[in-house]
């Protein structure tokens, strides 16, 4: 019995020798290194959180991959960080929702063309009992009222801000401005009613829910999270709550490594008939209403030119495929 034990141990020693471990590691390197270097058929995309958290982008990616054989690698963050990645040339394409910064990105020569593919609206959501009494007001009036009541009673009335330089955060700032307040007088540590979350939309909603606070959210993320929240959308619609999603290819002249062709193919897919139909129907089944509206047909209404909503004629996926075949 005793010697059997020793034998087993000796055998184990042989198996788990240094050499064995080394060989195992080398095999591991060989297998995995293939996928470790960047390869040409991957599109890198930085996106605002709403398209990611609602899984719309997932759906689009998979369709695009089936049709074009191109993998889409999406990195999700706010508009602020997406623009950073674009300016550094780390992604081929950015999807954001903040017109002023979109135009600046293009004017700086960082991006090529603004392409509008989807829109929806921001909601001001509140705890069920609406402690500040904003129901029936418009967006800027509601903000003013939340501030007023928050100053009076910061234990009952709170507002959670994204605070992460995202598109939603920018929209919030412009609403404060529209209500007649300087943002620095709002985002001020003396204001106990104003909480800066510094995180994505989903996490901000969860925080607002926990704190029984008001917050500004895009419609799609709210719909997707609604099941876990006791917040209600008090104020919705209205032109000052419009939320337009825009894709911009990163300028290859500025960043030689980026793939302009892949980026344009994907953008074209987004604005194509098929892409627009996918967007218009996304979430209809699960949430009872679509989470996004297609940009096609509403271009001027959402502040885009017709050209910003149409296909680029010379780069579609099938064209590219037939070109390589020929």
């Amino acid at each position, binding site marked *: 019995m005793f010697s059997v034990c020793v034998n087993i*141990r000796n055998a184990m020693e042989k*198996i*788990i020798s240094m050499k064995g471990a080394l060989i195992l*590691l080398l095999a591991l390197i060989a297998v995995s290194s293939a996928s470790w270097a960047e390869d040409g058929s*991957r599109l890198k995309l930085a996106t605002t959180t709403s398209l990611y958290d609602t899984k719309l982008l997932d759906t689009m990616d998979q369709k695009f991959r089936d049709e074009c054989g191109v993998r889409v690698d999406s990195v999700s963050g706010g508009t602020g960080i997406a623009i950073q990645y674009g*300016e550094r040339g*780390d992604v081929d394409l950015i999807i954001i929702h903040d017109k002023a910064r979109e135009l600046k990105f293009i004017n700086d020569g960082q991006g090529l063309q603004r392409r509008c593919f989807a829109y929806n609206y921001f909601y001001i959501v509140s705890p069920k009992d609406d402690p500040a009494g904003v129901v029936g007001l418009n967006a800027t009036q509601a903000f003013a009222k939340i501030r007023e009541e928050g100053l009076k009673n910061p234990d009952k009335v709170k507002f959670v801000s994204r605070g992460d330089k995202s598109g939603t955060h920018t929209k919030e700032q412009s609403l404060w401005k529209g209500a007649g307040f300087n943002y620095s007088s709002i985002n001020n540590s003396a204001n106990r009613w104003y909480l800066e979350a510094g995180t*994505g939309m*989903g996490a901000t909603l969860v925080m607002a829910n926990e704190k029984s606070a008001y917050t500004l959210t895009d419609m799609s993320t709210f719909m997707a999270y609604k099941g*876990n929240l006791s917040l209600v959308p008090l104020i919705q619609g209205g032109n000052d709550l419009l939320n337009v999603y825009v894709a911009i290819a990163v300028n290859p002249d500025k960043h030689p490594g980026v793939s302009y062709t892949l980026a344009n193919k994907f953008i074209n897919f987004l604005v194509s008939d098929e892409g627009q139909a996918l967007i218009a129907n996304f979430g209809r089944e699960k949430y009872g209403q679509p989470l996004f509206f297609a940009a096609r047909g509403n271009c001027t209404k959402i502040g885009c030119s017709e050209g910003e909503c149409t296909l680029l004629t010379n780069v579609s996926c099938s064209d590219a495929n037939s070109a390589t075949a020929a």
Partner: protein
Amino acid sequence: MNEILACLVRAIELIVTLNPEVLGVTSLTLTISIFTTFLGALINLPLGGLIYFRSFRGKGLFIHLIRTLYSIPTVVVGLLIFLLISRSGPLGFLGLMFTPGGMILGQTVLVTPILMSLTISALEGVSRQVRETAISLGANEYQAIMTVVKEARQAILAAVLLGFGRAISEVGVAMMIGGNIRGYTRVLTTAIALNTSMGDIELSLALGIILISLSLIVNLLLGLLLVGIKGQGGIMGPKVR
């Protein structure tokens, strides 16, 4: 309490049903952490030895400096590596941003202070007499060093395991350099962060349980490896001759 139990059940369910997504994330996590640990050990064990066995000016200060870097936040390492390998950075031409390779680079930098300085501590823990005795018995410089290293192997293994633990459990570098891309750079920790932010606490905790189990398995295996090297002090206790 019920919630935690539910998470445990979910974790087991994810493992036994071989959920392909979880499997992919888990194997990438393991690959990256093992690779990081291996690369880190390859660089830092010899370097730590070199620092211990050689004397040079400012050695004490240097060791203090390395120990200070224990507490460097992972996001700061992530940021530094980001500036380095971003396409606009000095190593941008390598195209490592948002790739597993970039994550390994970043995590190797992250575990370097731990591995280097714990190797030094491990060697310091061996009595001076061991080396002196070896030399007096006629060992040359190399043989003497190897004798000391052998004596310190347990502590060195502990250092390596700590390096592995730091690599497998960190979020900052993985998120910043990897970008949490599904099916490509998503590891357990970033998946946990994502699912938590999306409100799926149960899945997050289940993934956390998988991570801990992985760590346990690696620990046990390395314990066995130690038995294999010298036949002493592994998880099975002293070797029987």
